[in-house]
Structures are given as C-alpha cells and as structure tokens.
C-alpha cells in the first residue's frame, strides 16, 4: 500500500499578507515518500474565485519540476522560489464573489496518483464586504448614538 505524501509549504511572512508588486518567497518540501516515487512536481502562485458563480482560476507563476531538471534528482528536498506579485486582482471577500490567492503544490507519482496542497495568502488588505442592509443599520445606530 502506498502512503500519501505530505506537502509542507512555507511562506516568508507568517502574516501571509502581501501588497501588490511585492516579492513573495515560498518554499515547499515533500515528506512521506521515496524520491524515486516522484514523477513531477508543480508549484503555482494562483488566484481562484469562490461564491455563486462558476470557479475561475488563473496562475500568476507556474513551475513544473521533473527529475531530469536537476542533477541531484531528489525532488522531495526543500525547494525555494520567489515571484513578484501582480497589482491585481486583490484578495476579496464579497457577497457572491470571492477571490482567493494561494500557493499550490501538486505532486505526481509514478503510480498515477497525485496529491495537492495549498496555502492561502492575501494580496492587499481589503476588508470583507458588509451587506448593504447591515451597513445601513450600523450607520443608523451610529447616527442615533451621536
């Protein structure tokens, strides 16, 4: 029986909040499998939508690693990569549209299996959207208090 690999992704900022145009440095390491079992690894910096609509996804940075790419061939070792983040779209938590940024690592094994792990991060510092009714009532409360 084969064991699922464990993917560990680390970002250079514990807060996981970045501003547009900033550098993001991430590293990942694969545990729990033999290096020979790994066929390929894909690491991507991407955004995707959530909410009522169909999911849209776009990669900002995509890397595919194959054993022949490196002399050591041990792809389970910690790898580090960096990318300059784009100016948009910013992370957003709306009412029916949400935009999430994440580092996603996908490991393809020789047996045809694949495992994926992702770590979210925020691009920009936008606050979650408040429904308009709630906004109006809080404004009214503030006016009343004044």
């Amino acid at each position, binding site marked *: 029986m084969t064991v699922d690999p464990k993917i560990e992704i680390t970002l250079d900022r514990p807060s996981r909040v970045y501003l547009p145009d900033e550098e993001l440095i991430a590293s990942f390491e694969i545990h729990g499998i033999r290096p020979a079992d790994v066929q390929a690894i894909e690491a991507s910096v991407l955004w995707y939508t959530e909410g009522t609509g*169909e999911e849209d996804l776009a990669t900002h940075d*995509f890397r595919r690693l194959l054993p022949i790419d490196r002399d050591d061939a041990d792809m389970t070792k910690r790898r580090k990569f960096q990318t300059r983040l784009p*100016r948009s779209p910013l992370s957003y938590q709306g*009412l029916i549209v949400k935009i999430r940024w994440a580092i996603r690592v996908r490991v393809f094994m020789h047996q045809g299996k694949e495992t994926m792990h992702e770590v979210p991060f925020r691009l920009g510092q936008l606050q979650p959207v408040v429904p308009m009714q709630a906004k109006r009532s809080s404004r009214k409360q503030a006016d009343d208090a004044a």
Partner: protein
Amino acid sequence: MPRWFRIWEKKRGSRRTVSRVVATVGETFFFSALFFFGVIFTAMTIASVVLETWPMRAMFPQVAFVEGECTIQETRVVQTGTEQYPHYQPEAMVLLELPGRQYHRWTLRRSPITYSTSEAAWKRLDGYEPGWIYRCWYDPESPGQSIVLERTPSYGLWVIFLVLISFIVIGGIGLIYTLLLMGISVERRSALANRAKSLELLREEIPMEAYPSIPNDANLTNSPGVRLAFRLPIEVSPGWWLLATLIFSLLWSGMAAVFFIAALGKHLAGDPDWMLTIVSLPTIAVALASIYAFLLEVTSHTRVGPTGLEISSHPLYPGKEYRVYVTQAGKMKIKSLRIFLICEEAATFLQGTDVRSESKRVVDQLVATAKNVEIKPGLPFEAEYQLKVPEGSMHSFKSDHNAIHWKLVVQIDAEHLKRLSRSFPIVVYPAEVELAR
C-alpha cells in the same frame, strides 16, 4: 457544525464531489463514440451509395437511376385534392423502349408537383411536346415504376452526409482535446493559456496588462468632454429598449388582430367560437398594454432628452475625489435628478443546462441630488458635483464567470413621466496606497 452532504445541489471548490478520472473517462468515451459513429456510418453511407444497396437505395432510389431516352405520347393535368380545394397535377405519358420490352408510364418527376390552378399546371408542361424524344431516368431494376422526366436533387442525402461529417469533426476535436488535457492539472492549463497569450505574434495585438483581470477602459476614455476630461458612454442605448418595445408591440398587436378578426368574423357569421373569444380577450389586453408601454417610452424619450455625464479623470481610485458634470436636455419638470455610484458583483453559473446569472449590489452611494428643476428646449440642466470613491473599495474585476462592475447611475424622476435610469460604466483601479512602489 457539520453540514449535510448535498447530493443534488450545486457544489463548488472543496465541496466538489466530481471525480476527474471519471469525468475524463466519460468525456473520452463520449467523443470516441461520436467520432466512431460518424466514421462507421459515413463509410456505410458511401458504400451504400456506390454499391447501390440498402439503405440508401431504399431511402434515395434516384441515386441508382440510369439515363435513357423516352418518347412523350400525351400530356395531361389531373385534378387532385377535394372539391372545395382542388389541386392540379401536370403529367406526361412516356414510352421507354428497352431491349426486349417497352414501358409506359404517366410521370413527370418522382415527387408529384401540384398547382392551385389548371393554367399553372398546363404552363408547367410547356416544352414537353407529344411525339418528341426527351432524356429520362429510371431504375434498371424496375423501369416501369420509376421513369421520370426530371431529376430532383437528393438534398436529404447531403444532409445525412453533413450530419455524419459533423459527428466526425466534433468527436475528433473533442477526443484530441480530451487526450491532450489528460493528466494535466488545472494550474498547468492556465499556465499554458497564459503562455499562449504572451506569444510574440499575439503580443503585438494584445498589450501586456499592468493590472490583470481589470477591464480595459480604452472605450471609456476615447471621448473628450466639453467641461471635464472625459465624456462617459451610456451603458445601454435607450434607443435599443425603445426598438425592442416597438418590435414586441407590433408583433403582439399583429397576432392579437388576427385573433380578434377571426373571433369577430365567427360572431358576425352567427357561429360564435367562445374558446377563440376567451383566448382573444387577454391577447388583446396584452396588445393594448404593449402599445401603451411603447407610447409611454416614446413620450419619455422625447420629453426626457439625452443625459450626458463627464468626469474629471479616469480610471478612478478608491479614496480619491473626482468632479462629475451632468447635463440633462428635454422639456419637463424634474421632481428629482439623482446620481448614484454603484458597485455590483455579478456571477454566472450553470444550473442543469441553463446559464444563470446573479448580481448583488455592494456599494450604492448617493453622489448628488437636484430637486424641482424645470428644463426647457435649448436650455439643458447643467451641474457639477464632487464624487469620492469609498476608501477600501474593491477594484473593477472581470473573469470568465465572475465580475465586479462599477457605474454611475443618473436617475430622473420627472412629472407625469415614469422614472428613468441611465447607467454610465466606469473602471476603478486598486487604491494607489495598496501599491508597494
């Protein structure tokens, strides 16, 4: 608290229960079946046509016809149909002489052709003179039952070929696409699409985006304003809505008129059709309502003239202030003219086979109000206001199924007219303070 597992309802993201393997196998099976069905049946059809065997021989006997020479002995017009509605069918008695046997048959073409008048039917026979020899076609296996003087094109056969070839094309492209994408992650597909976009050839046409996923504002800034920097284009031209109302009103009124005349005719003839009368009444009511709605639209658009909106700068940034200049022409007394800054989230999704869309307003800010204004022809209402995009707002965004739209809406509430809203799209960029450099 754990949620119920939703079996039938839509599931997205991590709640998706779809298996990519099953989906890929299913797609491969579907496109393979379509492709091989097309190939096998095209080959069968071609073989059947060439070898003149079933099923094409049965469906399109003319594909097996051979050419010969026939002598026309007589021509006639046969009356068919009913006494009340007669039809006239032109025919010719032909003689086909083959080695060892002669065949006689009343014929013209394989599918009989009829006319509403005898004269038209006789006219169709012009050119066919008794005693003369003409080209004819017949099935060598049964000449007596198949002789025709005119061949009709086998459109049905070409339709069958087109359908079968479309199966091959759709199935083949689908199969190649599915096989190419097999084992490719969604991220890699997206990266491949990005790479395709940045190809040298394409780059000349599509400039690299400084702000990805933000709609291009070139169409909003190509018209300079009179007072301020840009004149914003209106979202939907009011003329289109007017035209749509007119077309609906005309079509519905035409249908209602047919119903009304038919029902009235029955009543006048002393044989009232009550079912038709009952159906006609609501149809006529809708027709009158649509005419009223059209006239109201015409009145609104003739009295409420064009609305113009200019802005001091574009694109807009959250937290920044801008000037807007509004002009309203026409002839009316305005109870109130209000300008709103609106931000809406929009999402499209599949529900079964339907594409549905939903939108939600997240910003609805009153920018300015003008009350009790009288507008006279040649003296439009003009005013300049200050506008501030709320701080911390999301920028404009557009992807395949999701969007965030910003717009300025001018709402006109005039006396004796229905309330009119005119939208002017704008593009909001991320706040400059969000940028690190």
